[in-house]
């Protein structure tokens, strides 16, 4: 259907520069995530027209507007569903899904779980700031117990979810955690995630400098420890990954917790796609198939 007649050229950072500058608050963690994604795409030499960036709603979900790709700004919590449909219709494209902790683990929690068990081949980046940013600072599913916000001014009485353990339990085939301030490390994780065949999830600490006074850059910096610095760490070992995912406090691991490559992707399991991406397939069925459908009714 679509035909590309342009000669291939080297992919540069310029092509990913968005049409408008991000309107995030100065110092917002999301800037670092945007920069890391742009860097990763350049390093992987994926041209911008082969990338779909799909988000939900939130500060972090404004991401597709700040990077020049085929972007989709969808509904609060629905990015993964939209992205699954997109990927199934054109599995030739690299699909990035970007959003917040509220978007992904709150309103979109059901899609999160099911996208992981389906092993949809896309990269899901959650800019986890442990708060609802866009709606001016309410408790999120990752806000810590006792955290005071506008919606829970006397402190949250609900414990947070653990996105890493959740992803591991749900069968995600690539599970990682990054930190917006650790640019090189994050870029590397994003590259691996994009190259991973299957669902890749990166929970990125991306502090909200305006509404979260608890989980600030300063709070995270001394606590994050790279799993990669532990030479004995084996990311193919699910049980150890699960154990590590439970660490929270003075030491919070970041890095690739887990990866397995032996699970077929959703699109790889669909014989219907043997003839190539759905979007480039003929939308008429052959006459003998049509005849067969009618014969069944006779």
């Amino acid at each position, binding site marked *: *259907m*679509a*035909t*590309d*007649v*342009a000669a291939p050229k080297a992919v540069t950072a310029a092509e990913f520069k968005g*049409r*408008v500058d991000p*309107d995030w608050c100065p110092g917002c963690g999301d800037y670092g995530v945007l920069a890391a994604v742009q860097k990763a795409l350049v390093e992987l030499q994926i*041209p911008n*027209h*082969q990338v*779909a960036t*799909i988000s939900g*709603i939130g500060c972090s979900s*404004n991401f*597709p*507007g700040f990077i*020049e*790709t*085929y*972007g*989709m*700004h*969808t*509904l609060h919590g*629905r990015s993964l*569903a*939209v992205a*699954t*449909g*997109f*990927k*199934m*219709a*054109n599995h*030739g*494209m690299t699909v990035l899904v970007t959003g917040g902790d509220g978007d992904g683990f709150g309103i979109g929690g*059901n*899609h999160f*779980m*099911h996208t992981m068990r389906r092993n949809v081949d896309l990269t899901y980046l959650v800019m986890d700031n442990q708060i609802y940013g866009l709606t001016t600072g309410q408790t999120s599913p990752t806000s810590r117990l006792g955290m005071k916000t506008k919606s829970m001014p006397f402190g949250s009485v609900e414990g947070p979810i653990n996105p890493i353990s959740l992803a591991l339990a749900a069968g995600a085939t690539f599970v990682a955690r990054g930190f917006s301030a650790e640019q090189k490390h994050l870029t590397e994780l994003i590259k691996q995630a994009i190259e991973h065949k299957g669902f890749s999830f990166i929970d990125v600490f991306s502090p909200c400098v305006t509404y979260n006074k608890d989980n600030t850059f300063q709070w995270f910096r001394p606590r994050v420890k790279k799993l990669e610095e532990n030479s004995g760490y084996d990311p193919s070992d699910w049980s150890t990954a699960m154990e590590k995912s439970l660490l929270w406090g003075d030491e919070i691991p970041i890095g690739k917790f887990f990866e397995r490559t032996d699970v077929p992707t959703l699109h790889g399991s*669909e*014989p*219907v796609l043997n*003839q190539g991406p*759905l*979007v480039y*397939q003929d*939308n*008429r*069925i052959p*006459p003998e*198939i*049509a005849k*067969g*459908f*009618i014969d069944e*009714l*006779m």
Partner: protein
Amino acid sequence: MRQSFAVGIGGAAGQGVATPGDIFAKVFSRRGLHLNAYNAYQSIIRGGHTFLTIRTGPEKITNMGDRLDLLIPLNQDTMDRHLHLLGAGGAVLYNSDSIKPGEHADGVQICPIPVSQLADISKNKVAQNTLAIGAALSMMGVGFPALEHVLAEQFRKKEQKVIDENVNLARAGYDYATQHFKPFAWPLPMTETKYAVLSGNAAMAMGGVAAGVKFYSAYPMSPSTGVLHWMAEHARKGNIMVRQVEDEIGVVNMAIGAAHAGVRAMCATSGGGFALMSEGLGLAAQAEIPIVVIDCQRAGPSTGVPTKTEQGDLWQMLGAAFGDYPRVIAAPLDIADCFKLIPEIFNVADKFQCPGIVLCDLLLSEGRLSVDPKELDFYPEIDRGELITSNGVEHEPYKRYKITESGVSPRVVPGLPGYTHTVSSDEHDEDGILISDEYTNTTKRRAMMEKRMRKMEGIEAAVPLPQLVGPANADVTLIGWGSTYGVIEEACEQLREAGISANYLPVRWLVPLHGDAILDLLKNAKHTIIVENNYSGQFARYLRSETSFVPNGYIRKYDGEPFMPHHIVEAVKEQLAGETNLSVPTHEIMV
């Protein structure tokens, strides 16, 4: 009056009502007869009461009719519920080992079958069903080979032993009836045409294939599940991606993702699932991504009556999602139309880049109709609208939401170099850039709103006008929408036979409604009555809100069962006599 013959088979769920139904349907359609089948059932897997009516005849059979000619009760309950509906000339065939007839009208032939004498019931629990089929076809004047053939096919996946056993049972029933019972006065005729028999759900699924649907997503919900089942079973042959999703919110959003990637995407649900989809419909409209959503209405609100029919979702469709946005809504008139409508609505949705809603209902979704296979055209026109698929030509910087006179901005298939852009749920400018952040640009917002809504003008011109059917100067004009088409058509015929000339206006496109055209059609009508399957007269209210038109009367039914022709005929008579202007017919069978 058109010639027809109706068989009613009833029993508890799990007693095997479906198989005799399938066998009768095959025998009739292969004889070149039309048929219409409707199954009244409940949301129960075992027990309860299932009652299948199959009506057949040489002319089009548009509804289940008014009476039964043959009753086959598989249990006492069915006998008790339905025997009183048989009139002179009718017959009841039953297993006399376990079922007793009750009070019945004069002239009803009581046909007991001594099942245990004719079959080894310890081996075959559904022997009574097969014996009854054989007996019934003998009384209808159908030769045995036709039945033998259909039985062999029905059980083709079983061993030869099973086929032989069923053929022998059917033969025993056939011969027993020939010896002991009177044949019906009207032997079933035969014609040369062979009909396809299909449900509305299968028809919509196949209509989707004809439209070029490549992505179908769903979450099971009666009465829409048949679309999913058909699609899933035929996905690999038709090269269609079928996905069962975690909920209807996911369903519609997946369809939107696939549609944006460039394929035709469709999904089906019922009222409850549709409610979950409504925010997604707004997204499709705002981001200008065409999708088609089928709503198979069932009796609501809430979980309602999952296995009963109603036309109660109209206002949900009209108001689905917040804000104003262009949409199209169409209600298929019959099962053949379920097929035809899908490619049509896809063309409109694609051309105008907006959501299309198909408002079907249980009556059509799960009913079955004979259709001339020529009507099932798998190669209708496919118009994808303005869709950029090649970057071969020089072009200006691409603006996804370019302001145009028609309101339509060319779409692009993602993946093409030189056309990257972002489609947006938030209000945006021509570029797709959000204008809702920081400060809201009122000029741009207004321009975008007007651009989108301008599409309605084009849609109105692209969609056919409604037509009045029947004599121009009729005494009464019946107005209906969607699935009531068939029953209204027959009611008009019965009214004419009773000396009341009647015509009718079947409304198929609800949005756009073509209000002026409707007013024009109705301006000389002597007595207008709106017929619909809901409590509040949803269509009547809608028509009034769009046109100020107020009819002379209303006929409504909201007990879960569809109209029968006589319900409408009697209601028209009482309204013409000035007795009332609102008739709510009583459904005489408890099913």
